[in-house]
C-alpha cells in the first residue's frame, strides 16, 4: 500500500526521523492557514506547495512550487488543487490533485552549501535481507545515476539477527562525505529511518532527496513510503491511511469482490484461477494474435457470484471482443465452475461477444458437457492448445 508524502513524513517523524515540516490542505483557504501556522512554528517565510498524489516526478509536472508570500500560497494552491497532474510516472491523463502539502522552505542560505542525498530502504531479494541504498547524487532520478555513475551508489545490508549497527550508520555518513554536526545528524537519521522501516512493516522507503541544510541539519524533504500489505494486520491505524482515489476504481471494486484484477489495454478479456496461470493465459492470447485486456485471478473459489462479478467487470470495457476463461480445477470442481458460468451468463443476459471456456482438472469432461449443452454461445475446450486455437479463430 502506497502512502502520500504527508502521511509518510508523519510516520517517519513519529520514529524520530527529522523531516521537512508541513501541513496538508484541501482548499486554498486551508493552505493559507497552514502557511500561517507553519510560520509560527518554524519561522519560515517562504513555503513550498506540494501536490499530494501517488506518483514521483511531481516537480517536473508543475506540482511542486515555491511561494514567497501568503498571497502566492493562495494563488499557487488554487492552481494546483484540482489539476490533472501529469508526471513521468502517471498516465497521459495524469492524476487529480485532491490535496496539497504546505511545507517549510529548507533551502535557506547559510554557512555551508546545501547538498542533496538519495536514500532508500528495501529488501535485497537475492540475500533475503533488508538494505539501505544511498548516493551522493540526490534529487535526481536514481535509475539515471545507476546507469551513468554506478560508483556513486552504495548499499549497506542489515543482519536481521542484530539490526542496523552503529558502525554501519557511521560508514554511510562517511561515504556521503559528511563531517561535524551533519555527520552526527546523519547517523541518527539513518538509525531512526531503519527503525521505522522495521517498525511499520514497510516494503519500501525512498527518500529523495535527503537534505543537508546550510546549517548542517539532515532532513527528509520527500518521503515515498510503501507498506507491506501482508503486514497491515499489525497496523490497523495505518490501514486507514489508504487513499482509494489514487487507485484504479475498477481494481478497487474487483479487490473488494475477492478478485485480483489489473486493467490493461487489449481486446481479449480473461478470467483465470491462479496468478501464474493468469499471466500464462495473457501470453497465450498474445500468441494467438490478440492482446490481453486484463489480468484477472479469481482465486481458489470460483463460485457463481465471483464469476458473475468478473464477467461484469470485463464486459464494462467496450474494447473487449472475446473472453477466455481458463480454470484449472484442482480442489475446485470444474462442474461447479461450469454451473457458475452458466448462471452468471444467464443473469447478465446481454452478453454479445464470444466466450471461450477452458476447464481442466477435476470433472473437466462433465463440465465441458454442461457448457456444450447449455445452449449458450460459449465455446468449450479442455486442452490449453485447443483454447488458444479458438482465440485465434475468433480474433
Amino acid at each position, binding site marked *: 500500500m502506497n502512502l502520500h508524502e504527508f502521511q509518510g513524513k508523519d510516520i517517519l517523524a513519529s520514529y524520530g526521523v527529522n523531516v521537512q515540516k508541513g501541513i496538508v490542505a484541501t482548499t486554498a483557504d486551508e493552505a493559507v492557514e497552514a502557511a500561517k501556522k507553519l510560520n509560527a512554528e518554524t519561522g519560515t517565510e517562504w513555503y513550498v506547495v506540494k501536490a499530494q498524489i501517488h506518483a514521483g516526478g511531481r516537480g517536473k509536472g508543475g506540482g511542486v512550487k515555491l511561494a514567497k508570500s501568503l498571497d502566492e500560497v493562495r494563488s499557487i494552491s488554487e492552481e494546483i488543487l484540482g489539476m490533472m497532474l501529469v508526471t513521468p510516472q502517471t498516465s497521459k491523463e495524469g492524476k487529480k490533485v485532491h490535496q496539497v502539502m504546505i511545507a517549510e522552505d529548507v533551502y535557506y542560505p547559510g554557512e555551508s552549501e546545501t547538498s542533496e542525498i538519495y536514500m532508500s530502504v528495501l529488501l535485497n531479494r537475492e540475500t533475503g535481507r533488508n538494505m539501505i541504498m544511498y548516493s551522493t547524487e540526490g534529487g535526481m532520478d536514481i535509475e539515471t545515476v545507476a546507469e551513468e555513475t554506478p560508483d556513486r551508489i552504495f548499499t549497506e545490508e542489515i543482519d536481521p539477527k542484530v539490526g542496523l549497527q552503529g558502525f554501519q550508520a557511521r560508514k554511510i555518513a562517511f561515504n556521503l562525505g559528511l563531517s561535524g554536526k551533519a555527520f552526527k545528524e546523519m547517523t541518527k537519521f539513518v538509525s531512526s529511518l531503519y527503525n521505522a522501516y522495521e517498525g511499520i512493516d514497510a516494503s519500501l522507503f525512498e527518500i529523495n532527496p535527503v537534505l543537508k541544510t546550510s546549517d548542517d541539519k539532515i532532513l527528509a524533504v520527500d518521503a515515498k513510503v510503501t507498506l507491506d500489505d501482508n503486514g497491515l494486520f499489525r497496523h490497523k491505524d495505518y490501514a486507514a491511511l489508504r487513499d482509494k482515489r489514487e487507485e484504479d476504481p475498477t481494481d478497487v471494486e474487483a479487490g473488494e469482490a475477492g478478485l485480483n484484477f489489473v486493467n490493461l489495454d487489449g481486446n481479449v478479456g480473461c478470467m483465470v484461477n491462479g496468478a501464474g496461470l493468469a499471466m500464462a493465459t495473457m501470453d497465450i492470447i498474445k500468441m494467438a494474435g490478440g492482446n490481453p485486456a486484463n489480468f484477472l485471478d479469481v482465486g481458489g473459489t470460483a463460485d457463481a457470484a465471483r464469476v458473475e462479478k468478473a464477467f461484469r467487470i470485463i464486459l464494462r470495457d467496450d474494447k473487449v471482443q472475446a473472453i477466455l476463461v481458463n480454470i484449472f480445477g*484442482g480442489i475446485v470442481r470444474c462442474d461447479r465452475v461450469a454451473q457458475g458460468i452458466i448462471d452468471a451468463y444467464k443473469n447478465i443476459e446481454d452478453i454479445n461477444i464470444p466466450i471461450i471456456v477452458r476447464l481442466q482438472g477435476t470433472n473437466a469432461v462433465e463440465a465441458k458437457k454442461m457448457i456444450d449443452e447449455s445452449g449458450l454461445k460459449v465455446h468449450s475446450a479442455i486442452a490449453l492448445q485447443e483454447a488458444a486455437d479458438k482465440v485465434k479463430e475468433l480474433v
Partner: protein
Amino acid sequence: MSVLVNKDSKVIVQGFTGSEGTFHAGQMIEAGTNVVGGVTPGKGGQQHLERPVFNTVSDAVKETGADVSIIFVPPAFAADAIMEAAEAGIKVIVTITEGIPVNDMVKVKEYLSDKDCVMVGPNCPGVMTPGGAKVGIMPAFIFNPGRIGIVSKSGTLTYEAVDQITKAGMGQSTAIGIGGDPIIGTSMKEAVEMLMNDPETDGIVMIGEIGGQMEANAARWIKENGTKPVVGFIAGETAPKGRTMGHAGAIVGGSEDTAQAKKAIMKECGINVVDSPAQIGETMAQLVGVKA
C-alpha cells in the same frame, strides 16, 4: 528415490484442526501420504482424522518420529510455526500459508540458515512425489509416477505442467512448488539442483515468472552443471512494467527481470524454452524420447 518427500516420509500437519488443515490433511491421507499426526497448540491429546494432535512440534517429533511438516497456520503465526518446526528437528518444512509479512520472512530465513532443514514456500502448492507422498494442496489425480521433475513458482501453472506431462505419456518424479513470494525457503536453483542430482529424474520442467533473478540464477547453474534436458517457461511476457501481477514477487522492476530477458538467458544456458505454456508436455516428450 525422488526428492524431498517419499513413501517413507512421516508427515505432521501444523494447523491440523483448522478448516484448511483438516481438509487438506484428509486429501493428503487419501493420496497415500503417511500423515502421522498434527499440531494445534492447546489441543494436544485429542484425536483428529484418527491421528494424534500435539501441543508442540517437538512433542509430535518425539512421539511419532515425524521428519516432514506441512504448515497451514494463518499468516500472523506462520513465521513462528516455521521456526518451531526447524527447532524441533523437522527436515523438510512445507509452508502453504499465503500472506506472511516480508519482515517476518527476513527473520525466518536468517533463523533457518544454520538449521539442518529445507523449507519450501511459503505461498506455494507444496511438494508431491506421486506414489510416495503428497505434502501440499495439489490435485493428486493429475499425477502419474514417473521420471520428470517439475519446479514452479506458481500453483495452477504447476498443475498445468503436471497434467501435460501425464497426458504426454510420462510421469513425475517429484513436483516442487517453490512459491512466488519475495523471500522463499528453496530457490529455483536449489530445487533444480536436487532434481538434477536425483537418479530417478530424467528431465526437468522449470516454470518461472516475471520478477527477481531466480530463473537466471538457476539457468546459469544448469549451464555449468546440467546433465539432463530442461524445458523452461516464463509467464508474464505481456505483463506491464511496474504493476504487481498477483504474486507479491511478480513485478517487473528493471530490464533484467522481464520475461523476454529471462527467456534469453535460459536459452543461452541451453534450456529448451517454450513460448506457449501449452507446449511443455510435448516438448519434454520429444527430449526424453517418449511418444506422446
